[in-house]
Structures are given as C-alpha cells and as structure tokens.
C-alpha cells in the first residue's frame, strides 16, 4: 500500500445521505452522494427505517458511480473506510456490512472511523494546509458539537454538544410551526430574507450565567422552539413569518457563534473550522465570518459538498490515519450510535 498518498474509498451511511468518496492522500477524486431527503419530507424529519432502506438500494450504484468519476477500479484501492458512528444504528449497519464485505472481497485493509472527526477531516481536501489546534463547530440535523482539535488522528476533545435537539432539527421544527416545508433550513433562510432579526428577542439556550459552570459549550434548542411556538400561537391570525423566521434564525446563529468564539478565546486557539449541513445557512456563515474577524479568529469553511455528510471526509480521515502509520481496524466492530469523539478510529489492530 502507498502510505504517503493512499487511495481510499470511504462509505458513509450514518443518517440520510449515502456517501461514497474516493481520495488519494489529500486529493479528492470523487464525492458521490445519494440522499433520501425527499422520502423523509412528508414525515417532517428523518425516518430511520426509510433512511436505512434507501442506503441499501443506493450503495452499489453509488460505489460504481464514484469509481467511474475517480477513474479508478476497485483493484486499485489501497483501503476501504467506513463510518462506525455516531449516527442512526440501522443506517450505519448497512454501510458497515458493505464495507466489511468489500474489504474482505478485495483483501484490503478496512478503517472504521468516527463520523464527527470525519467532518473535520473534510477540510484537508480543500487543498490548503490545515493548522492545529483548531476549534471546530459541527452543525447538522443530527448533531451540534463544539470540538477542540489538537491533532486530527490522535487528539480531539469534545467541549460541548446539544443537550436536546440538533440545530438542524430545530430549523425543521420551527419550519413546521410556520407552515413551511421540510427541510427547514433553506425554508427558514428564504423566509427570513425580508424579516427583521431584531423584531423578537427569542431566548439563547444554555447562555445564562448559571449555565456557564457546567454547560459553557453545550447547546439547547428545545426552549427556543417552545418560545417560538408560544409566540406564534399568541400572535393570532397574522403571524409575521419573515420576522419570526429571522429572529429565530438569529437566536440560533448567535448562540452557535458566541459559544464557538468563546471556545477560541478561552483555549487561546485563533482558528475556527465550520462543518455540517447547517453551515449552508447563509446567515450563520455571515455572522461567523464577521464576528470571528473582529475577534482575530481565522475561519475555515469547506465547500458545502464537503460540509454535508459525505464519504469523501470518511476516506480523508482514513487516509490521514494510514499516512500517520496507524494499523487497520479489525473486522469485529459494529455500529455505535453514540460513539464518543475521542474514538477517532474504531477497533484498531494492536
């Protein structure tokens, strides 16, 4: 195997995107994504069984499409990588079953890796040199996590995470309250475009002085959701949707950016990496860039196709593990829906 620029095929099935990525070292060759998002739209959120069924159907065509795009064959691959967690257990198992059989069938090493650390690894594929340590804010429909990354393959610390809903889920739920379709993120963004973000002062979760001791870097969006619902219910027939959407979005963005920059300041790390599908939110990027600049913090935002769940980030993390000399995973691991972020690689052979 080429340990300086390994050719790795990554499989990601932790939520509703079937992602197959192929990288050669730090170079992205293919990032193929099949999403079952449309199938979840009528339910207003990701339905695990629907997602898992869709993964099974999408896997083989996605692998074939990724290979064709990368211009390589399976025989060329140096290693297979797969997400083992965190995520939806039944969805993860589809990718794990496929990855193991692929690795055994090809007689190639298999690397089982952490989805959240994969989001950080995505940044390697942008071509610029990544500097550590960095604070990383990962925001999606499945997670909202604030991490301190001292070293991608050996030292990632969870500073805080959501205590209830993920930020993306909060967008979906508020969209429903406002009668907007799923997924809520882009809909709220659109509705908020003409709204006044200061019209209504919605609560900032986990931001009181009393929260600071134990939950300084944790998030909570359920109180915000209730506050928006109450405001909408009591405002009568004419709900100013644009103002509510803009004010809600501002509350979410404010908490995310405030806590991320607080982490940068308190850990003396002038770098912030953003990842996860909610990074698509225009206002979040705007506020993060503006306030980070004022705080002297450099912000990195990978292209959106590498921010949303994808297989390329999983391949990129495995490639980094290989480059740093890590042995492959053994075949015994399973899906771990709550895999801690400190477990960057799972079941590494000793």
């Amino acid at each position, binding site marked *: 195997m080429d340990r300086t620029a390994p050719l790795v095929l990554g499989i990601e099935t932790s939520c509703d995107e079937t992602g197959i990525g192929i990288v050669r070292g730090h170079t992205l060759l293919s990032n193929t994504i099949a999403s079952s998002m449309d199938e979840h739209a*009528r*339910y*207003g*959120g990701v*339905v695990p*069984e*629907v997602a*898992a*069924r869709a*993964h*099974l159907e999408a*896997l*083989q065509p996605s*692998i*074939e499409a990724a290979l064709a795009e990368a211009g390589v064959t*399976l025989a060329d691959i140096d290693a297979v990588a797969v997400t083992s967690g965190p995520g939806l*257990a*039944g969805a*993860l*198992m*589809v*990718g*794990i*079953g*496929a*990855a*193991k*059989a*692929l*690795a*055994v*069938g*090809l007689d190639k090493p*298999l690397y089982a890796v952490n989805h959240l650390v994969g989001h950080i690894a995505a940044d390697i594929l942008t071509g610029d040199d990544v500097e550590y340590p960095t604070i990383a804010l990962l925001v999606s429909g499945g997670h909202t996590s604030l991490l301190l990354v001292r070293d991608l393959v050996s030292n990632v610390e969870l500073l805080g995470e959501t205590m209830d809903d993920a930020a993306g889920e909060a967008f979906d*739920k508020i969209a*429903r*309250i406002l009668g907007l379709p799923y997924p809520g993120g882009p809909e709220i963004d659109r509705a908020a475009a003409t709204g006044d973000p200061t019209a209504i002062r919605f609560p900032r979760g986990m931001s009181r002085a009393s929260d600071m001791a134990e939950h300084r870097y944790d998030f909570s969006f359920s109180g915000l959701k*209730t506050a928006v*619902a*109450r405001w909408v*219910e*009591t405002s009568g027939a004419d709900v100013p949707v644009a103002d509510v959407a803009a004010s809600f979005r501002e509350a979410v963005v404010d908490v995310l950016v405030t806590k991320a920059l607080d982490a940068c300041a308190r850990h003396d790390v002038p770098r912030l990496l953003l990842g996860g599908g909610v990074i698509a939110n225009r206002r979040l990027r705007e506020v993060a860039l503006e306030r980070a600049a004022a705080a002297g913090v450099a912000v990195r935002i990978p292209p959106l196709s590498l921010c949303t769940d994808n297989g390329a980030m999983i391949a990129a993390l495995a490639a980094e593990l290989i480059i740093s000399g890590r042995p492959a995973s053994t*075949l*015994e*691991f*399973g*899906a771990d829906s709550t895999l801690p972020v400190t477990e960057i690689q799972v079941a590494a052979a000793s």
Partner: protein
Amino acid sequence: MILGIDTSLGTAVAVVEPDGAVRAEAHSANPLGHAEVIGTLIAQVLRDAERGPIGATAAPAPAAPTHVAAGMGPGPFTGLRVGIAAARAFALARGIPVIPVPSHDAAALALLLADPFADLPRFAVVTDARRRELAYTVYDGIDGDGLPVRATEPALSPLADLDARLAGLGAERRDVSGIPAAMLALAAARAVAAGRTLADGEPLYLRAPDVTLPGAPKRVTG
C-alpha cells in the same frame, strides 16, 4: 463455487460447490450483532474453503466464488440488510453476480433433502418476524431442477392466527430458527444451472416502514 450469505435470523455464511459439496460453513445464532460478525465469518469461510472438501489432498488454493447467494428474507429488517449489503459489496469486489434467494427456500431445501423418501407432506417454513408476528412460506415438494416448490409466497401472520391459516392451506408447520447458508448457496447454484430466478433483487420486508405522518404541531399554550 458459491458464497452464501444470510442474515434474516442469525448470521450464516457458507462456501458450496455447484454440486452441493460444502467447502466451508460458519454461523452465529445471535439474532443481533450481524454487523459485528459478518466480516469475520466471510473471511473465515473463504479461508476454510482454501483447504478443499473434507478428505481432499490437493494443496490449498484460494477460494474463488463465481456467484454470491443473498438471503433476501423475510426477517427483521436491520439484520437482514447487513447480509444483503455484504453480498452485493462482495460481488462488486470480485466482479461476480448476486443471486437473490428467498431465505425460506433455503430452509425448505434443507427439510426436503433431509427427508430420505422425498415424501414430505406440504409444509410451511415458519420464522420469527418480531412484533408478535411470524413469517411463513408454504412448500409443496421439490421440482425437477432440485428446487423447492413454493405454494405460497412469503407472508406475515399474527402469532395467534398462523395455525388456522396453515390448516386452511393444508400445510404442516415447520418452525425454523436458523437459515442454513449452504442450502441457500445450493438453491442459488441450482437456479443458475436451470437458468431460473428465485427472487428479484429487493429485500422481502413484507412490512412498510413504521412511520406516522405528523399532525399539526402540538400547542404549547393552554
């Protein structure tokens, strides 16, 4: 040589010659944990198959399956998918075809071949489908291609109704707790030899995903 993979109940894998000679077999009876064991079991049967059939004296040669038989269920969805995903991925890795086989066909073939006088009465293979339901398929002997004859397609029945339903179909009940992967592979081999298809490529879920359409958002004010 056919690699059989079934995860509709436990996890079962086997490597079988087209004539039915079993080169290697391995299984885990655990009704969970399919994702954990699938890779190890496939690697194990491939390794064991290198040594050739029992009594063979030739030097070990790498096992090179020509087909992968995939057990398509019915069975609990989460586990079932692991085996189908693995079968498809292994086939992709080796550039060989997947032969989908209803899992009950393998159990039926095992029952039929174990009956020395080939006069097994009409019977139903019955397996656990969770949620107080059973999955069943009724069979009527073996045909000229050596394949079990399905009298009904796989279906679900509430626990309490099954016996009456099978009495109505004139079928004896045969409860099965594991699917023999060697029989799955043999059924696939016989289907390939006869140019027949036993199942389409879709898993036999028999149940729609358990979801409810959301109603209006719950009120938070009184």
